[in-house]
């Protein structure tokens, strides 16, 4: 097998394992067994685990760029956004796992970079979907809240169309309900 191909096998398997188990999934022994490759191949190509993790981070950036590129094709937020995102579910799970490893420099830097990329791509269409005015500082605040809540909630088992679209609809409904609440809530009493 060509060197590039073997390296890609290692990286792709490592990426998939990282998505399901985070750093704990990146054991050379385990990946080698799952790939049916010799551990020496790993050390020949990557030298050490930290360099392998750097390769995974690079791969994650490439995957994220590709996701951002695909998101340009979103016409109707639902279902387009969900369908495109689900095509990248491994990448989304990797991003979720990276959030866990805030104390790992390479992973944390990669996480922040990808967060910025995704925020930039998703924020405008999401604000429109939820119906918050674009200039409102709370729109960004709410977006970041939903984003972090999302990473807290998703697992490999619930990352599917129904769960994701329900979650998005809920975040929209919450805004509507809070505003409706206005007409009868305690705040109204203060402003007769």
């Amino acid at each position, binding site marked *: 097998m060509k060197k590039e191909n073997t390296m890609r096998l290692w990286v792709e398997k490592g990426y998939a394992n990282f998505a*399901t*188990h*985070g750093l*704990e999934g990146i054991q050379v022994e385990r990946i080698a067994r799952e790939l049916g490759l010799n551990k020496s191949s790993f050390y020949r190509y990557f030298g050490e685990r930290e360099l392998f993790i750097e390769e995974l981070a690079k791969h994650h950036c490439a995957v994220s760029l590709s996701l951002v590129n695909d998101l340009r094709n979103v016409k109707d937020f639902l279902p387009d956004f969900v369908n495109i995102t689900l095509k990248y579910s491994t990448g989304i799970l990797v991003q979720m796992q990276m*959030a*866990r490893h*805030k104390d790992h420099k390479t992973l944390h830097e990669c996480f922040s970079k990808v967060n910025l990329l995704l925020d930039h791509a998703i924020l405008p269409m999401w604000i429109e979907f939820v119906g918050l*005015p674009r200039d*409102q500082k*709370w729109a960004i*605040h*709410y977006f*970041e*809240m*939903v984003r*972090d*809540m999302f*990473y*807290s*909630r998703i*697992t*490999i088992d619930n990352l599917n169309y129904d769960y994701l679209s329900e979650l998005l609809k*809920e*975040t929209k409904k*919450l*805004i509507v*309900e*809070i*505003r409706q*609440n*206005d007409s*009868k*809530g*305690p*705040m109204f009493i203060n*402003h007769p």
Partner: protein
Amino acid sequence: MRINQFAMTKVSSIQAWIDAGYVLFSENGLEAIQIEPLSRAIGLNKSGFYHYFGDRESFLEAIMEHHMKHAKNVTVEYSQMKQLLPDMVDILMRYRLSVMVHMQLVRNKHNAYLFENYNKINAIVDQSILPCWAEYTGLSNNLPVAMQYLQMVRDMFYARITPESFTAEFLSTTLKDAGDFVRDLRQKEKPVV
């Protein structure tokens, strides 16, 4: 007398294992539950561990029982809050260790047992915060929405909290922002007369 003493020792060393496991879990989650470092940390023999708990799984169950005990205590305090700010900040600061354990449950949610415990405890704790939270956010007349918002803020909080960011200031700001968001959202809707 000797038997009583023996019984005391047994209970206290079981507790020592659980306490140490609880602290290590709060710092490093599931990975931290290794018998070797634990036994070194508390200066007890590994054989005791196997005698009391059998295996790692049962030990994890004991730690989760311990966590549930703390959760039940905190619900009593939450239900006695007069005002969300600063009462909730005070309570969270005092339960720092449990909050960090709870954060680890989110981080280790690929373990179904831990995620199950996260949800189980939330179901109890959320209810005890709800009345005060609903009043604070002005959503008392729509409790399902108040609850939905509370759960959203909760999961955002557990995604963000780290040992470094865990300060009274961070907690206050998080709660203040959560309240301001709702109030501002309404005021923007209403033309000022």
